[in-house]
Structure formats: C-alpha cells, structure tokens
C-alpha cells in the first residue's frame, strides 16, 4: 500500500474531540503507528468550533518534537473534501457515525476502519451499528476510549481480513411505484 496516512474523524454534528485527545496524548500509539504500520502522516478532523481547534493545538504542542519529525501531524475543522481525505488514508479511526462509516467503507480502495462509539450520544445507537458491522467483518469496533484498547485494535489490523460492505440496493423502482411514475 502506497498510502501511509492515518485519518482521525470526530464528526461534525456532535464532535467527539476526546478521540484525538487520547490518541495524540499517547506516545506509544504514535510510535506503534510509525514503526509497525508505516504511518508517516496523521490527519485530524476536529469539531467545527474554535474550542475544538484550540484543543487540537494544545495536544500538538505536547507531542515530543523528535516524534513529530517522524510523523507529520496536521488537522482541519470543516472540509468539503472529506471523501478525498478518506481515500488518501490507509487507516481511519473514527467516531461511529453512519456518515463517516459509509464514506469510508464505500471508498475504493477502502481504508481499514476502526470506530469508537461516542457513548454519550443518542442512547448508544452508535454502539449498535458499530457492533453489527463488526460482526460482518467490515470494521473493528473499540469498546472503550483508552490507550490500551486503541493499541490492541491497531495490533490486530495486520492479521485481519476486512469484508467489504454489501453492495447497496436501489430503491428507485419502489419510490417510482409509490409516486406513480414507474412507467413514465
């Protein structure tokens, strides 16, 4: 694989900033990414608010300068080019929002996907989809947001065969039937 980029997605509607905070605070994770997974660049999508941007800058200033020479870390708030960011990455670590999951799994070639459900959100329904898609082998779901669990999931990446998301079915005929335009 020629892509050596890791993308961290926190989502836009209810940004999950703790995600990049935990990853960037851990020297072990960053070293593992560099040494075992050949990651040379990390892209962080933080929340659209200025508060999230400040958090990101604070995280960045706490990282060892030597490490930053090996792994380039950059970030952005909102972007129109999320699809391009995803397809340029080899690994995506994301909140378990349906939008990002679909964007990643439908991207060709699809990056390897690790999701971490944002448990404070919507009575844990991010949890449901993460588990269901993990059962189908499409992604790895991390139960708890901490250094140990993330490292464990990164270690399992090399031995895992990811299954593609089943091809999508089209509803156009059904909608046309209901709208009375099927035969027009």
């Amino acid at each position: 694989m020629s892509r050596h980029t890791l993308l961290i997605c926190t989502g836009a509607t209810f940004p999950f900033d703790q995600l990049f905070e935990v990853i960037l605070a851990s020297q072990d994770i960053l070293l593992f990414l560099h040494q075992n997974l050949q990651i040379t660049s990390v892209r962080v999508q933080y929340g659209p608010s200025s508060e999230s941007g400040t958090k990101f800058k604070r995280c960045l200033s706490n990282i060892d300068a030597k490490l930053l020479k090996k792994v380039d870390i950059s970030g952005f708030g909102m972007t129109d080019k999320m699809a391009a960011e995803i397809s340029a990455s080899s690994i995506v670590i994301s909140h378990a929002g349906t939008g990002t999951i679909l964007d990643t799994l439908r991207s060709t070639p699809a990056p390897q996907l690790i999701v971490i459900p944002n448990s404070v959100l919507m009575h844990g329904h991010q949890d449901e989809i993460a588990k269901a898609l993990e059962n189908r082998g499409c992604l790895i779901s991390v139960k708890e947001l901490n250094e140990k669990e993330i490292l464990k999931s990164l270690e399992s990446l090399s031995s895992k065969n990811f299954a593609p998301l089943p091809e999508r079915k089209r509803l156009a005929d059904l909608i046309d039937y209901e709208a009375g335009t099927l035969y027009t």
Partner: protein
Amino acid sequence: MAAVDCVQYIFNQITNNIFIICITALSFVLLFAFLMISLIQSYISEPVQHPEGASAMFILGSGGHTKELLTVAGDLNFAKYPIRTWVSFAGDSLSVVRAMELEQKKTEDQGTAYRASPKKAESVSTVQLPRARVVGQSYFTSIFTTLFCALYCIYSVFKVRPDIVICNGPGSCVPICFACILLRSFRIKQARMFYIESLARVNSLSLTGKILYPIVDRFIVQWPQLAAKYENAEYMGIVV
C-alpha cells in the same frame, strides 16, 4: 329560586334549539366519517399515476440522516420528478448545500436526456422549517415553539402539495407526515409517505420510526432483525 329559574331557562333553550344542536353534531360526525373514509381509501388504493411527472418532497435531517437520504435521492431519475422540494431545519445549512450539489451533479450527469423531457415545468425549491426545540430550551417555552413548528409544517406541505414525501428521520418529519394525512383526508393530494429507517438502527426502531410505522405507505429497514420484528417493514439489504 333564582337557581331553579336559571336551570329552567337553560332547559327551555335546549329544547327550543334541539334541532339545530342535533344537525350540528350530526354534520360534525359526518365530516369526521368522510375524512376517515377518504383517508382509509387513500391507503388501500393504488398510487395515483403521474405520467407528466410527480412532485417530490425530500426531508433532510442533518449529518448522517442527510447523507442517507441524498444517497437514495441520487438513485432517482429526476426527469420523473420535475418538482422537487428540499426541506431542511433551522441551524442546519450544510444539508441544503449538499442537496444543491446533488442537483448540480444530476444536471451534469443526465445532461441532454434530462432536459429532453419537458412534460412539466421544472421547479426546484428549498424550504427551511423552524426547529421544535433547541437544545437547552425550557420545556414550557418549547410547547409554543413545537406548536409553531407544527403549524409551519402544515402550511408548507399544503403549499407544496407533494405527490410523495421521502424521509428517514429525525423527529422533525413527524409533523410533515401528519400534514400529509390531512392532505389525503381532505382529498387534496394522495401524498404518499416513504420512510427509510437509518442504517444506524439495527435492533430497534427509532422513536420517529415507531411513530411513523403505522401511518406511512412504505417502511424500509436496513437490517433483517427489524423486518423480523415488524411485519410491515420491508428489508431488501442496505440501501445507502
């Protein structure tokens, strides 16, 4: 003495006007029965054919909801839906931007074929509805904002008179579907309601899904577990 007089007076009034009261009550009952019958009829009859093209209303939730809905909308041949209304909610400007991107892409993709069907004048519009409750708003004031939101939804649906409404949550599509039911019972339009449950719902329906399950014409789910639980839910695989 005065109290007895008063009762006597009311009694006389009622007996004198009993005919008018009965007629009024009866007409109310008849009107209600008529509305109910036309509503039930609209459910059991086949969809009305629109060879000249239909009017479609797309309800854009936000974030993942919008993405799922636009994916489904992207499969449609827009030439069959010359009148398209994109509905979004206050505070979410990104959904409209995404919808307009799809419109742009469709025009480019379908090119001449798209223009070659001038059966009905094309009209694309966007509607932004107020939110029922903003996060952090007090419950007391939210009674009034919800009421305002519901009335605004009814107004918009009556103005657009869509042939089909396509939605996939969140809660804001509930008043829109109720407005469709009004359209149908008054025989103004047979506004069909097409609901797609979000891919995120695997084992249980969303609250919106539970409310809309008995009233929509088509209820699509994306996981087999849900189709097993709800007999009128249709499962065909992942559609987004």
